[in-house]
């Protein structure tokens, strides 16, 4: 960990400004990912602006939906009565991730900023375009069992590792952001993360110094029929091989609209418009779900060691939809 200046921000404006002024400064929220990467010398900020004292952790009803503070802890978010009642998918996704201790530390904003768990990204002796642009991608021809099957580029095959965001994508959340000059803007969560393309060093579309202040959840028609499924190498405390956030709005036994988001398969949560289209207007049945699963995985391009994710992804989509529809 390199030496860095530590400051404790008293308000959002000061925090954003402090970071904007220094291209090597970073915000510190829960620290669960940033400090780990700093110890590994992957992240090398020379200034940390501690956000923990900012009043950005409120969770409240807003405009028919719910506004969740960027600094609300994952555990508080998952257990908030409004979230459990109206967005159980989000609750399930959050508690599928990490551990009790980590969820007590991690914030919602920080969770969106979570970086990949690619082994080559973590090891500074290895090539990685995300960590050091131009050095190559170690995983492309290397060990890539846990890597992307969608949207990867020759520069980077890493995946976004989180769970919470998969649910936020399914729930059409909006990310509220405050710039250095106090200017606020909103980013639909679907546009928040990026695909690697030629600039894998950029995980998302935030500008330097922009601070996430809240995540806004619109009123959701999915509370009754949603399910978060996570498949991993052990029963708990592991990243997803494949995860699925599935949500259905039912009209009797017919699906009015659906959301299918896959996790662990791309550089961002992978929302499948194809699967959603295949489900709309169909009866909720295993057959419909199989068709949707085939559609969801049709465009997958597996690497040397992760072809299993295509079949596993299909089965996970079917299972998640079956659970969402309460058919199993």
């Amino acid at each position: 960990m390199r030496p860095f200046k530590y400051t404790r921000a008293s308000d959002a404006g000061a925090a954003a400004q402090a970071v904007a002024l220094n291209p090597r400064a970073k915000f510190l929220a829960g620290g669960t990912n940033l400090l780990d990467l700093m110890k590994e010398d992957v992240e090398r900020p020379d200034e940390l602006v501690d956000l923990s004292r900012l009043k950005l952790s409120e969770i409240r009803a807003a405009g028919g939906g719910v506004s969740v503070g960027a600094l609300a802890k994952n555990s508080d978010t998952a257990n908030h009565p409004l979230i459990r009642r109206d967005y159980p998918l989000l609750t399930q996704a959050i508690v599928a991730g990490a551990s009790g201790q980590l969820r007590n530390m991690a914030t919602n904003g920080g969770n969106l900023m979570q970086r990949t768990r690619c082994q080559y990204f973590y090891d500074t002796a290895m090539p990685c375009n995300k960590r050091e642009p131009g050095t190559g991608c170690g995983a492309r021809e290397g060990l890539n069992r846990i890597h992307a099957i969608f949207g990867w580029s020759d520069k980077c095959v890493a995946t976004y590792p989180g769970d919470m965001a998969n649910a936020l994508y399914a729930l059409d959340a909006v990310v509220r952001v405050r710039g250095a000059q106090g200017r606020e803007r909103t980013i639909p969560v679907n546009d928040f993360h990026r695909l690697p393309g030629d600039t894998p060093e950029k995980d998302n579309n935030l500008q330097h110094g922009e601070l996430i202040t809240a995540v806004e959840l619109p009123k959701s028609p999915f509370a009754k029929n949603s399910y978060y499924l996570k498949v991993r190498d052990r029963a708990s405390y592991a990243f997803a091989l494949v995860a699925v956030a599935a949500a259905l709005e039912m009209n009797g036994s017919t699906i009015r609209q659906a959301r299918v988001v896959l996790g662990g398969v791309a550089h961002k949560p992978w929302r499948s418009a194809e699967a959603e289209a295949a489900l709309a207007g169909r009866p909720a049945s295993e057959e419909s779900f199989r068709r949707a699963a085939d559609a969801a995985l049709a465009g997958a391009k597996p690497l040397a060691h992760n072809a299993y994710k295509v079949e596993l992804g299909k089965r996970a989509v079917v299972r998640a939809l079956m659970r969402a529809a309460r058919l199993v």
Partner: protein
Amino acid sequence: MSDEFDEGSGPELTADEEALVKEMPALIDIGQARRTFLGQTLAGGMGLFALMLLEKEQALAALGTEPGAVFAPAPALENPVRVALKVNGAARTLEVDSRMVLLDALRERLELTGTKKGCDQGQCGACTVIVDGRRVLSCLTLAATVEGREVTTVEGLAKGDELHPVQAAFIKYDGFQCGYCTPGQICSAVGLLEEARRGDVSHVTEDVTAKVGRLSDDEIRERMSGNICRCGAYPKIVAAIQEVHSGRESARTWHFVEEEELARVRKEWEADETV
């Protein structure tokens, strides 16, 4: 390092050890070959083992520095941050390198080595402590960020000689072997019990929209999965926590085969011609 702060200084006794020495005057002759034996009651057991270690440590401390020892030129603290916090109920003030995490502050500066470093990366749970009532990982908490917070470590759970119920249950069920993950397991369990009282949900909660009642063993397993125990004491950890949580005693899961049982199976296979 500045002297104005109350951090520990090398080989002197910690507060706990001092208390121990006061409690048990026999300890005053540390280093001498003979001493009055200390009864190994539960409390005495605590003293006994602390005593054995203290003696070993004193031997090392006595070695000191040799002539010609090499030091770094002007080893001033970089990016110093002053932190005032409460640790196990006592106010402490520290000046730390901004890079220092709470775990290292506890272990290297406050002489509270009960909190363990297992991976230093948030992947094992050994460093779990309780900050403002919640279980968190001290390895991923910058010391600078705990200004004004209340930190409880495993050393702060017992009330004098009276163990915390979770500690007592861990002994009763043999919820540990090497003991290294144990402080983290115990702090995590204490945090978990509070979360359970609040009605928090988990990954294995069937219906997250419903009220959560008494935790099943599966619930405890999932909620303790952030604490790795390589010795594999998990079933006994679950039994210990379940008893504190619900008062329900877990059945013994081992038994000796009795002579009659042996005689019976031996007779059975004599009748069985395949063997």
